[in-house]
């Protein structure tokens, strides 16, 4: 591998890592607060992408899609939390996880009915079409923008969780929901908000990744598995874990494909197995925190 190619692959790795971070952030956020692995995450990702497609088709811009699709899916997530998940709080997390699995099946088929079975593409905005030169090789501008968006989202989420009042409440809710409740935090409202936010993030990544990964039936489960791998590698429920998990999985995927293309199908699972076998809680998870579904 020449230096040029290495730099190119490294950039590819960054792009894919940050795409993965976009995909995994919502899943991680919901798990962090609610202890629920949202198996409908992939379905909401795809729903976001399809809504974005429709918004662009109806004459809206890509930017409008990037704003509106997450909003719509966020509202759907909110409704789901209020009508479905909330009823299951008493029963423990497994029932909630199973409920989201059922929702994933339902949403997947509804999308199939609404948007058909063809492969659909969302064009990137004109501003980000074309290429820029990196180390003598051309690189698509949109993919570079994905790096920027991913990094800003990571920073924004970090600031939100660490610095804002709501973020403080979330952290309080994560570490001790009962105590947070007693201190006047409206925990149910917090749960609903975080669930809606996590779903909106899934939809956001669905729109953002659509120009690269396209949209088609079945993508939902692919994305779900990718996002699950990322959060499990990073350590469930921590933003930092999702970020570094994305980097590791993204780089493993890209360099696996570059160096051993024939075996790249195993790359991310090998990395995940290696991490889990040495650190069952993931890289940034606490050693005891291996609960969950």
């Amino acid at each position, binding site marked *: *591998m*020449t230096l*040029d*190619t290495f730099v*190119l*692959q490294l950039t*590819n790795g960054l*792009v*894919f890592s940050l*795409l993965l971070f976009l995909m995994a952030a919502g899943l991680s956020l919901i798990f962090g607060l609610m202890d629920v692995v949202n198996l409908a995450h992939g379905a909401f990702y795809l729903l976001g992408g399809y809504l974005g497609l429709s918004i662009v088709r109806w004459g809206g811009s890509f930017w409008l899609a990037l704003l509106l699709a997450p909003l719509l899916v966020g509202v759907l997530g909110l409704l789901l939390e209020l009508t479905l998940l909330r009823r299951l709080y008493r029963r423990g997390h497994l029932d909630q996880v199973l409920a989201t699995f059922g929702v994933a099946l339902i949403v997947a088929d509804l999308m*199939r009915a609404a948007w*058909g*079975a*063809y*492969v*659909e*593409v969302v*064009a990137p905005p004109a501003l980000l079409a074309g*290429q820029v030169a990196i180390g003598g*090789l*051309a*690189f*698509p501008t*949109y*993919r570079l923008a994905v790096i920027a968006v991913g990094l800003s989202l990571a920073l924004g989420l970090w600031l939100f969780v660490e610095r804002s009042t709501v973020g403080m409440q979330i952290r309080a809710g994560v570490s001790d929901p009962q105590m947070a409740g007693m201190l006047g935090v409206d925990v149910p409202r917090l749960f609903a908000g975080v669930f809606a936010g996590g779903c909106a993030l899934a939809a956001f990544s669905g729109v953002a990744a659509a*120009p*690269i*990964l*396209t949209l*088609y*039936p*079945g*993508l939902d489960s*692919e994305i779900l598995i990718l996002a699950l791998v990322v959060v499990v590698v990073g350590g469930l429920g921590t933003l930092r874990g999702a970020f570094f998990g994305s980097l590791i999985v993204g780089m493993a*995927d*890209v*360099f696996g*494909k*570059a160096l051993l*293309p*024939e075996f*790249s*199908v195993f790359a991310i699972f090998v990395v995940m197995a290696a991490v889990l076998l040495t650190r069952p809680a993931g890289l940034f998870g606490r050693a005891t925190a291996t609960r969950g579904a």
Partner: protein
Amino acid sequence: MSVERQKGTISRRQFLQLGAVGGVVAATGSLLAGCAAPNIGGGASGPLKIGVLLPYSDIYAALGESITEGMRMYFESVDNRAGGRPIELITEDEGTAPDAAAQKARKLVEQDQVDLVAGIVSSGVAAALRDYFHDNQKFLIIANAGANALTRAAKSPYIFRASFTNWQPNWPMGSWAAANLGRRAFISVPDYGAGKDTISAFTHSFTAAGGEIVKVQLTPFPNIGDPAPFLAEIQAAAPDFVYSFYSGAAAVTFVKAYSDFGLTGSIPLAGSGFMVEQDVLPSHGSSALGIKSALHWALTLDNAENQAFVAAFAQRELPSGNKGANVFAVQGYDTARLIVEALNAVEGDMSRTDDLIGAFGSAAFPSPRGAFKMDSTTHNVINPIYIREVQEVNGTIANVVLTSVGEVPDPGDNSKDAV
């Protein structure tokens, strides 16, 4: 919640639970009863029952819809009659899992007692079902699945293929590419049966014509994910051109990324025609411009049969919306016609097995692909193969035929494949 409740009374919840149990029992019972009485068919009279086994769910659903609609179009054009018998279609979902498809095949054959089965998109499903149809001496007309083996080692007298073998478009492309695209080829294909069929067919004729395979890149199947890392390796290898075979979502992500990375201008992309077929071409848009491919059909093919077909197909309504005719619809249309022609030849008498085998094997008729001619030795259609290029014609992106390499029969063995 009422904790203290009288024994002996039935609460609303209990009532609902009882009702739900009753519902489950009744549902199960009726599901079983639904298949208790097979409908008797077969013979030479009554409706001709055709089982259509095609994917309507999962990743191949768009193909299944197109093939089904193509079939319906032809059957309607002959007033839904074959060999003097009215045609009755029974569709079942092939899905992607061979075991589920096997169950559907049994349902069609044993429960619905269909006279024959048509369809099958996935080669994996076709491979799994081959023995079932062969052992039961039931006719199966394959409308897509292209695995070479079905025409070679796994050939059956009862199985005919109206679509293609993976060998057919790729082998002629080897010598054409060596003459027109360059001597150093980089092969990038998904790592599964069809990908490997592509490699062996193309390599055989390409190296025979003096070409050299720079590298073979096997990419993950079924999901390629982000193809960017593969493209960087292609760029680094700097071949004269890239030869590949992708279909469906992998085709769109690959072709789009190929264009996004600016490779289209520097390293020409060529391959099996499915990569730029009409099911994915609208999604490619201008990113597919310049791609050269080989296939047994093209939307712009200039023959009367095709123009009528394309115009008529545009009027149809499909579950996923009508994106215009594609090669799969053509295969469905030809499959239907093959069935009707053969049934006409035996006057609708399915019991004349040997005559039917002969009729299927000698079928020849005009088709949107040019001419449809069944090969009586391989039981696979002899395809006219066209080399096409994606061009912009009057504002639309379409495959334009550069040249025709004439009729290409599958060799029926691996003699024209590189090992």
